[in-house]
């Protein structure tokens, strides 16, 4: 193979690999990126049932209820304007408490319940999930002051 041909072949291969990777990435992104919703967002533009979304807000005070099986927990996430019922089966994060911030990955069921697969709570008093910044937390008396440093 001549030198020029070799460079050309290599450049073409590189191009094909890059385009392939780009297409694969674009396809996967379109399919798999999950959008972040607050309860108000869900009221405004309801996502389809079963679509993977990420829900964030504050756990409403007095809303945490455990099922009789001892491992399923039901609670309400609110952002000051709207409320969303959530159910989760599993061990709740260490700092999952009423009046505190939470981010849940999961999807809506047909009857409007949000079923969470994973729960993220704030990990310490200095840390707030990025998506929760700027959410009005005045409706939750325990949550003032200490959440955002």
């Amino acid at each position: 193979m001549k030198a020029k041909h070799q460079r050309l072949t290599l450049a073409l291969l590189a191009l094909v690999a890059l385009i392939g990777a780009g297409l694969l990435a674009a396809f996967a992104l379109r399919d798999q990126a999950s959008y972040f919703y607050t309860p108000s967002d869900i009221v405004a533009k309801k996502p389809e049932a079963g679509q993977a979304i990420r829900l964030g807000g504050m756990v409403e005070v007095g809303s945490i209820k455990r099922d009789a099986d001892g491992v399923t927990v039901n609670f309400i996430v609110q952002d000051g304007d709207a409320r969303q019922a959530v159910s989760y089966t599993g061990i709740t994060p260490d700092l999952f408490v009423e009046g505190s911030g939470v981010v849940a990955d999961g999807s809506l069921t047909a009857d409007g319940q949000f079923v969470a697969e994973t729960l993220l709570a704030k990990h310490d008093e200095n840390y707030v999930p990025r998506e929760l910044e700027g959410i009005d937390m005045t409706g939750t008396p325990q949550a003032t002051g200490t959440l955002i440093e």
Partner: protein
Amino acid sequence: MIAEAGLIALWLAAGLALLQLALGGIGLKAGRTDLLQAIRPVAVAQGGLVTLSFLLLIWLFLRSDMSVALVVKNSASVKPFLYKFAGTWGNHEGSMLLWVTVMGLAGAMIALFERNLKTATLVTTLAAQAFISLGFYAFLLISSNPFERMFPVPADGQGLNPLLQDPGLAFHPPTLYFGYVGLSVAFSFAVGAMITRDVGPAFARAMRPWVLGAWIFLTLGITAGSYWAYYELGWGGWWFWDPVENASLMPWLAATALLHSVTVLATRDGLRAWTVMLAVVAFSMSMIGTFLVRSGILTSVHAFAVDPERGSFILALLAIYIGGAMALFALRIGTVKEGSKFELVSREGALVANNLLLSAILGIVFIGTLYPLFVEAITDEKLSVGPPYFNLAAGPITLLLVAIMAAGPLLKWRRDNPKKLLNRLSIPILVTAAAVFLLVLLTTSMSVMSLLAMGLAAGIALASFAPLWKRNLRRTPMHVYGMVIAHFGIAVALVGMASESSFTEEKLVAAQPGTEIEINRWNLKFEAIEPLAGPNWTALEARISARYDGGETVEITPQNRMFASAQTQTSEAALLTRWNGQLYVVLGEGDSEGRWQIRTWWKPFVTLIWYGGILVALGGLLAVVGRLRRSRRQRLQREYAEVMV
């Protein structure tokens, strides 16, 4: 006084870095060899002073000197010794000082030990190294002084984030920093070689040990980080595609590509421009990783503080270094002569494929990590990209990459016969096919990806030893063993990953004392729950007796810890390791009826993931030792020959 001494040492080191840059620049411009001679001792002194500064900071932490703001914010006098020590770099200022210390030490090592490179290239490399360090010195001295005093002096410190109070923390960040900084050395070498138009095998051989060294540390750092997340976060997962994990994975991918292409340059004088480019990209990824973690722009457990000033500073450094290097690359690359040629089916061809596929994976991880930030900046819409994206996009390419990994080492340089390659690979291919067939027959729960991964792993495990076939094992160079072990390690890790994702069993129960839990062949009996107190925490501890397959009873004790200083809880998972897997038990909350949530997993062969990572790093270590010994021997022979003439 110690804090002031540390600050003075830091200022002096910064001054010496400036001198190092000036000596290199003026010396080269004016052709003054006396100035060039002076750069080595200056680099050594700079390394010594910055190390002194870092040691003094450690000393302040160990003494719990509460007149220093950084110690107050990140330590407490009741903290165990190890965490006072590790707390030194468990914060922004300390970790930046660690970074610049490692850079200074690396510069000193180049100055002391590099004997094969042309003087001009060496001097330019040291000057480039000083230039990068200067940015970090400025960063420390202007916006994040670790030695700042605090008035009035508080009675005690605020403690360290309890999640980080773990032996993993003592070693994980410094290991990654060694890797990041090693790549900065490769970057400096590339800049030096571009400026002096010296891109060739000698430059590649000088750069290779640094790339290998950086890559070993990154491999260990990622492996340790993965295990830390696995047992400390209590979620049972070993990789979350968290942006901070990706920040360490991206430099690793670039370094892996670089260490393969640098071999082509060193051995065959090919891929010149590409190798220089990769060195620039690899360091860019280190800087981007540092930026992502340190600026706090990510949603992540690692982003403790949101501080835009620091973020912009690192971003500015990133733009200067990478932009400068890219501009230099664009200007100079036309003058880099094309290297020697090769056919597509050849060792070089396989290494090019390796590089392309690694770059593709790097691109996919890069897009997935930065896309949400990009979208949010433009449309204000918030979006998260998680494991489904990464697994779907990067998974198939990874499998293709490991398939090529089996073939590459069996190919000859320059040109080879495709039919002969198939012959050499016939047994591994058969093994792969047989493994996939058996798994389809015997198991039901495996996804296509896991099936392929497991099958390929079986083939690769065999193929990785093929380069030793019919060789005199005692005369085989050490770096060949290194390659064999590293490739075998990939196969081992792959088995662990496929097994964990396919065969993990999980149980979640609300248990009262006396409740028994059956999982796989384990029988767990919840005996009791008891309070417990540690040095700076209190805990609730569950006593559970575990029996495997009717065997001996072992007691395990998962805990929920409350930390006094930060009002924070962490759950400490209990792990039981057997040769064929790991039992993972987490204690959750109790309820009013006296029941406690207990979550258990049985994860068959999960430990292979990290053993594989360790094998990969071990392979790298053998390679670097072998290469260094060989180049030393060759230099001694050359010097001997010169003396004899």
